[in-house]
């Protein structure tokens, strides 16, 4: 913030700026009030409630008795929680590959004068409106151990492919591919929007200086896109840590999911939460699991925010 050189603020000017500051502060609160109130009632209150219940034994239909830290000590010693955490973190780390992929596609789909760009963009958008059952059916067909397309292609080069979704060694990787595939559409929308906000003048100036499109991408697009990329990375990591629907849809639910020999490598933390809360009626323990996950997500998010100074470039 630059002040005009030389003059010292007078008392009157001071009072005026204080009034301005208070007015601005009041406007600030007013602007955040609607969302804040809505979030508080419908979202924060349930979190507070659930945190309370995580210290209790919570009955299937209500009713609870205080048990203190029992649920948390139990969860630390529970091997199933540990495994679910490893699975979830594996998925999260591998899923980060989807972000640079989405940026590359966004850049390609943003090239000026590209013919058929509407058609391409619509194609990239379609996974997002495809019914999850259809997505699962197709991918399960591709991954099928006996007649799946992937294994048929592999057999041409003499490799006998595994049962991708049923083999503990490959199941999570197969799932990550589907996860990345389904996330590209969403991320693309946001990156395309972010690219619109980059002033054309920068590209024009660079072209006149003789920079090619690749160089422009690395020198202009990426840095200018970094606030958006930061947003996507936060949201992607949070989404990956909360993974539930994808596994549910790909491996079936309930008993058919658990009968999968690869289940121990596929079960995510939220899936474990769902099973404890709604299937085995262990609701206090489930509350502890989800609150512990929330703390972990918060920690990782804070870490990412701290790191943003290093690579995110705000105008």
């Amino acid at each position: 913030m630059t002040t005009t050189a030389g003059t010292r603020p007078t008392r009157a000017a001071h009072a005026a700026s204080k009034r301005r500051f208070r007015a601005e502060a009041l406007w600030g609160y007013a602007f955040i009030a609607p969302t804040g109130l809505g979030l508080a009632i419908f979202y924060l209150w349930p979190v507070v409630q659930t945190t309370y219940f995580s210290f209790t034994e919570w009955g299937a239909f209500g009713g609870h008795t205080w048990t203190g830290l029992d649920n948390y000590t139990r969860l630390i010693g529970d091997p199933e929680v540990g495994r679910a955490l490893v699975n979830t973190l594996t998925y999260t780390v591998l899923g980060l590959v989807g972000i640079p992929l989405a940026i590359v596609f966004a850049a390609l789909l943003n090239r000026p004068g590209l013919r058929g760009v509407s058609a391409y963009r619509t194609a990239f958008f379609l996974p997002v409106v495809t019914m999850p059952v259809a997505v699962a059916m197709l991918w399960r067909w591709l991954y099928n151990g006996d007649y799946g397309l992937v294994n048929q292609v592999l057999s041409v080069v003499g490799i006998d492919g595994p049962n991708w979704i049923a083999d503990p060694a490959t199941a999570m990787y197969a799932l990550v591919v589907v996860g990345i595939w389904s996330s590209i559409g969403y991320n693309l929308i946001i990156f395309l929007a972010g690219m619109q906000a980059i002033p054309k003048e920068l590209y024009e100036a660079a072209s006149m200086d003789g920079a090619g499109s690749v160089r422009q991408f690395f020198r202009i697009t990426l840095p200018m896109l970094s606030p958006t990329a930061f947003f996507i990375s936060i949201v992607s990591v949070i989404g990956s840590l909360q993974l539930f629907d994808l596994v549910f849809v790909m491996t079936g639910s309930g008993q058919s999911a658990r009968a999968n020999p690869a289940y121990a490598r596929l079960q995510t933390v939220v899936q474990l939460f769902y099973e404890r809360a709604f299937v085995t009626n262990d609701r206090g323990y489930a509350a502890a699991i989800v609150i512990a996950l929330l703390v972990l997500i918060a920690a990782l998010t804070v870490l990412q925010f701290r790191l943003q100074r290093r690579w995110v470039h705000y105008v």
Partner: protein
Amino acid sequence: MSERRPIGVHAVLIASSLAMVAPFAWQIVTSLKTLSSATRVPPSLLPEGRWDNYAKVFDLLPFADQFLNTVVMAAGRVAGQVLFCSMAAYAFARLRFPGRNLLFGVFLSVLMVPPQLFVIPQYQIMSSLGWLNSLQAIIVPGLFSAFGVFLLRQFFLGLPREIEEAARLDGAGPVRIYWSIMMPLARPGLVALGILTLLWAWNDLFWPLVVNTDPEKMTLSAGLAALQGQYQTDYPILMAGSLIASLPVIAVFVFLQRQFIQGIAHTGTKG
């Protein structure tokens, strides 16, 4: 402008587009099959041309009611979020007030909560408000979004301050700056939020299913889910229904994504 190898670009895009489109194409093919053929292994690639599956969707669901519910709910959520989230995002990005960072952190923490946690508590809130089995039960919680606030805040942060400061020096207050300057400049972000909110609202299955009981009050996704029997599901009809339901969203996207082609140069001067 370097357009040295458009063919390379097209090749990559065509290949990737095929990968993206495949399940959607599969959905279309399956919707035209008989049930026996849809579940056969190995799957057959050619459908039997059962266009009557599409007609059956309208017999099985109160389609018009559910479509209207979905449109109203989605429109409500989009309008609400675009308005409320942009207000909060602007405040967090550009206004100064005590506790701003802390409050933003609290907003963000909502995003970190796994959504499955909310089902039962929100159901109880709806029950105590007397809103079970109603439209407002599916609209109101969706008016508020931490995701939207975060997304738009990033957009607002990326906008240059010069225009704003010029307006401020001209005596404009926060409301005017927000409405006449920041919002138009953040249009790509608003459009992105609109599309995503529309998508999530349109596909929202679990919440409308749990909180509403009359098929006439349900959304399309929830109505389609109810087509699944305990032991048998008519997949072709289900997929036909889902395709019909997704047409409006695809149409909106095709229309709106042109917004992404017109860039907005915002160095402050026009022309």
